[in-house]
């Protein structure tokens, strides 16, 4: 599914990722944890192809093909989805119109016809229920005036609508209260299946109580310093990152 090989990424000339290697199989959920500044968000942007995140060596293979020469739109069309830590406001553009344009862009890339208004509305209602959002929501402008929780639910709604094969959740738990966290996690869990992979980036173990990972990786100074199963996250919760940072430096 996703294979990252010895990835080096610089931002504004500074090296951030320094030889990161990660392999994810279909249907697997991997969590990336790590202290501030370890390169977690850089990893998500590099995979999604954001301008300014320059891969200096290594490769990112998605379904066996390198994505390095693909623009962010082409990567999205190939089935890659990034749930943003800070979803962006698009004033004057209704959420519903945005969802439909986006869905149709992906369908077009797959050689399918545009979705008709009727089936679109049925799909939208079905997925709205998943994240417990009211339909009136989709008449508002994209992320404009949304609360933190609403923005994150809207990200999960998009994920549900677009049905990507790889989901990257970049600190989806940040800014969520307990109830919102539960709703968002339930939405994400409903999207888990044997073919869809997820890369969950988080600071806190508590998200992993709700979205149980198959693997946990600790990112320190631009590299994976340690990998394990979900018990590693519990260890981190108890002991902090220092013992791993010390181990990585040694």
């Amino acid at each position, binding site marked *: 599914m996703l294979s990252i090989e010895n990835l080096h990424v610089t931002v504004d000339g500074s090296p951030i990722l320094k030889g990161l290697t990660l392999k994810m199989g279909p249907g697997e959920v991997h969590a990336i944890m790590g202290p501030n500044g370890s390169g977690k968000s850089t990893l998500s942007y590099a995979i999604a192809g954001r*301008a*300014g995140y320059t891969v200096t060596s290594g490769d990112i293979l998605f379904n066996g093909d390198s994505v390095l020469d693909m623009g962010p*739109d082409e*990567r999205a069309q190939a089935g890659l989805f990034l749930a943003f830590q800070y*979803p*962006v*406001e698009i004033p*004057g553009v209704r959420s519903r119109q945005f969802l439909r*344009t986006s869905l149709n*862009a992906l369908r077009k890339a797959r050689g399918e016809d545009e979705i008709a208004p009727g089936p679109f509305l049925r799909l939208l209602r079905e997925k709205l229920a998943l994240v417990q959002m009211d339909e009136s929501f989709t008449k508002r402008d994209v992320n404009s005036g949304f609360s933190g929780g609403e923005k994150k639910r809207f990200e999960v709604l998009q994920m549900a609508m677009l049905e990507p094969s790889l989901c990257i959740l970049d600190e989806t738990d940040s800014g969520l209260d307990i109830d919102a966290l539960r709703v968002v996690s339930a939405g994400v869990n409903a999207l888990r299946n044997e073919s869809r992979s997820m890369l969950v980036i988080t600071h806190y173990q508590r998200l992993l109580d709700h979205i149980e990972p198959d693997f946990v990786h600790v990112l320190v100074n631009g590299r994976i310093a340690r990998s394990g199963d979900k018990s590693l996250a519990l260890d981190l919760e108890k002991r902090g990152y220092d013992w791993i940072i010390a181990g990585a430096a040694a």
Partner: protein
Amino acid sequence: MSTSQETIEAIAERKYDAGFVTEIESETLPPGVDEHVVRHISSVKNEPDWMTEWRLKAYGRWLEMSEPNWAHVEYPAIDFQSISYYSAPKSKADGPKSLDEVDPELLKTYEKLGIPLYEQKMLAGVAVDAVFDSVSVVTTFKEKLASMGVVFCPLSEAVHSHPELVKKYLGSVVPVSDNYYTALNSAVFSDGSFVYIPEGVRCPMELSTYFRINEAKTGQFERTLIIADKGSYVSYLEGCTAPMRDENQLHAAVVELVALDDAEIKYSTVQNWYPGDENGRGGIYNFVTKRGACRGKRSKISWTQVETGSAITWKYPSCILQGDESVGEFYSVALSNHRQQADTGTKMIHLGRNTRSTIVSKGISAGRGQQTYRGLVRMGKNAHGARNYTQCDSLLMGDTCTADTVPYIEVNNPTAQLEHEATTSKISDDQLFYLMQRGLSEEDAVNMIVNGFCKEVFRELPMEFAVEAQKLLEVSLEGAVG
């Protein structure tokens, strides 16, 4: 390096779709203006003496005036003696009585522009008064409108058929000597549209005029006069194009609107005059004076404009709110790409009690475009309880364009209320990346952001026009990102 920068440079490669020249014989006056030219134009139109005198008086005033130079635009001095002041397709000499008599080349031109003169127009509910260079070629649906008492005809015709209305209202909103260009227009105006909506009549269709400058080295000086009598309503649409030419051409129009008690006029413009090439060669100088007078109580005048063309735009559609509780509105999208310069805005002059005005201005600059919003809100001393809301937003694409906002506010009544909001933003990399991560191409992402930015104005346009405006904006921005 960044894809967004590349796209911004690419969307600047716009094509100008309306840039064809129609080959028809036309009668064009030699360049230059003097009293003889003014008299000639008047006599070609077989005008009554009072009209000729009106023109000559205007010409006299023009000679005493000088060009305005306060606008934030730069261009080489215009040689007013090198412009031809009158051009008419020759076949017009006898005047077409119906579409069959119109030069087929002309009709083809309108077809290329997508102007519906035939039955599909009827279905679309649009009556068109098409001004080609200087004369009004054909006016459709006159009969249907006439049965309701609506007058919609070339101004040159109204001078003969409704002299009392023309005498009473022509120059009553925009005085002859209002400015240099209005004086010139008043002296040499070639034609334009005249609309009269009788008391209590709601005009059943959108009235529409399409302007096109075809002849080289000609100026276009049309005049529009719209009178909405008590309790009437009319929606008027205006579109403009010109062929691509190396030299600059002058367009100096005057539009006057009069709304009596409880009347409403909605005036929409989609302006797509040739903007010049990427290096600023050629293009139309669009120096236009548009003003509406809300003379009656509870009357309303609403201007909506989408300005994507012209090398230079100098234009301030305004409202004089004389009647108590009258309402003025101005909704504008103006775009400057490449070397285009636009100095545009509005004036809301509050004279009556409890008058209200709304200004929503959206400026988009790309390439080396230069964009200035200039607006005046004046609360007169009798304007008790008057209110104004102004919102001025600028959107910048790339880092070689500029946007300025120049609001003028004069308040002479302590009960008046004003609100002014202004924002300047760039299409952010965050927004582009977000939309592209959802599968949109960079160009589609830019269009979505720009359309969202303009939404408050587009929704004021009649449906057909809104779609056209949206497409025009997309074409105008092709290559501005990339």
